[in-house]
């Protein structure tokens, strides 16, 4: 949290919001390392473990966790235990939210039947994405166990859903937004990996 509370007055994009960096690249890396050990501990080993990232930013996080697990424990192959689960078509806000292009769903070759699935997402907020993910999974198989790992839990749940593994609990207000930047998705233009809170600037209604 080396850059916490850094207020940005007028960045080049001209966004009239105060951005605070909550986690920097090293913080994210440490959080993911801890989560990867927690996942193996909760699973009592790596047997039958499948990590499913939720697009878009959940997938690169799942990949990073998978690589960490593969680096520390024998018997876990990211090719067999990593996948991506798109939940767009299962959302409950399809009639209200803007229509979005679905992302691919790619499951490991052995599928998810009877396996121990860990869903991975970047930010846990209302819980509706996770509800959609649970529905989506039912169309692909019946996992033995489903757990949830998130980088940020920002509170304000609207459904009885909780995360098993959390990178950072981050109390927020509903008019703030939490933005996660990851190199795999945002590229070099997005800057270094980080988690930011954007607070709406007083008196301004412009949105970037």
């Amino acid at each position, binding site marked *: 949290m080396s850059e916490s509370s850094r207020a940005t007055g007028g960045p080049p994009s001209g966004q009239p919001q105060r951005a605070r960096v909550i986690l920097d690249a090293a913080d994210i890396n440490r959080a993911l390392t801890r989560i990867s050990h927690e996942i193996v501990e909760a699973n009592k080993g790596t047997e039958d473990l499948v990590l499913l990232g939720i697009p878009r930013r959940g997938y690169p996080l799942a990949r990073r966790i998978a690589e960490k697990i593969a680096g520390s424990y024998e018997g876990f192959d990211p090719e067999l235990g990593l996948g991506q689960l798109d939940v767009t078509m299962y959302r409950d*806000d399809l009639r209200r939210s803007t229509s979005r292009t679905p992302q691919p769903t790619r499951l490991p070759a052995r599928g998810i039947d009877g396996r121990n699935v860990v869903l991975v997402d970047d930010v846990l907020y209302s819980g509706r994405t996770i509800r959609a993910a649970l529905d989506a999974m039912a169309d692909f198989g019946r996992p033995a166990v489903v757990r949830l790992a998130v980088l940020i839990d920002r509170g304000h749940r609207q459904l009885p859903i909780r995360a098993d593994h959390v990178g950072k609990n981050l109390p927020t207000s509903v008019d703030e937004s939490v933005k996660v930047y990851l190199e795999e998705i945002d590229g070099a233009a997005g800057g270094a990996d980080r988690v930011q809170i954007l607070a709406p600037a007083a008196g301004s209604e412009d949105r970037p």
Partner: protein
Amino acid sequence: MRHLLDTRDLSRAEAVSLLDTADRMGEVGQREVKKLPALRGRTVVNLFFEDSTRTRISFETAEKRLSADVINFAAKGSSISKGESLKDTAQTLEAINADAVVIRHPGSGAPQRLATSGWIDAPVINAGDGTHAHPTQALLDAMTLRQHRARLGGTDTAGTDLGGLRVAIVGDVLHSRVARSNVWLLHTLGAEVTLVAPPTLLPVGIGEWPVTVEYDLDAALRRGQDAVMLLRIQRERMNAAFFPSAEEYSRLWGLTPERLAALEAAGSDTAILHPGPMNRGLEISSAAADSGRSLVLDQVTNGVSVRMAVLYHLLTGPQAPHEEGHHDR
């Protein structure tokens, strides 16, 4: 995008987004549970005033894969044959709260009339009207061409257009809504379109279309084409002498075994497309239709995906124009 009436209304970004969604929809067809809940509880009416087998089956499959409730309404056996007007039919649909209407009609412009008359609020999808437009056919052709190019290049289709792709559309352009919709969509996506036809089967005013016109199929093929799209000779519309005989048409503008052999000899990757149903031995020989170059069955598969994508885009998103597009995590 409120309705889908013509490919001419589509921007490049809208078309690419539809094709990207269609690629994802295609994956659903490979799954064990071939169904998505996206349109659960929504009612889609298929209004077919003109005979159709494959388009109707394709739309119905797409609607069911998205969990919509489907009502099929064919002109034969309905009150249309008793003389009910399009307006009364539309108001009936409005009264039963249809959420979308798919319409095929022999009159050019009927879907436009339905969409703009104020008779109904639901989105209208044109499934072919007269000799005007058949936008979902053009989209499935574009999807097939995009896959073809990605397969050859070993690349991913996501986000790509058809920039620089050379496509020859051969046959009865005059009566073809498929050709019209394809010309505009392929042009929007950056492809170079050549129309090949006898002068009698080209419409008036073709000089204003963004295409090259060629009367000689062999010359067009010699210039090199990435795809050849054959149009069906529509016997039901052949009420005047547009060409002397079927044999002559086949010899001059059909994809004969000799022309197929010439493509093989040139070592090109030219793909063969046909919107179906095929008149084997007339505009396309059996050898060409059954060759490895033929993407006809891919077109049928992609038809379902594209129609799912169109229904998804028209039936989701903010229903009121100013509703906030907020996304809850």
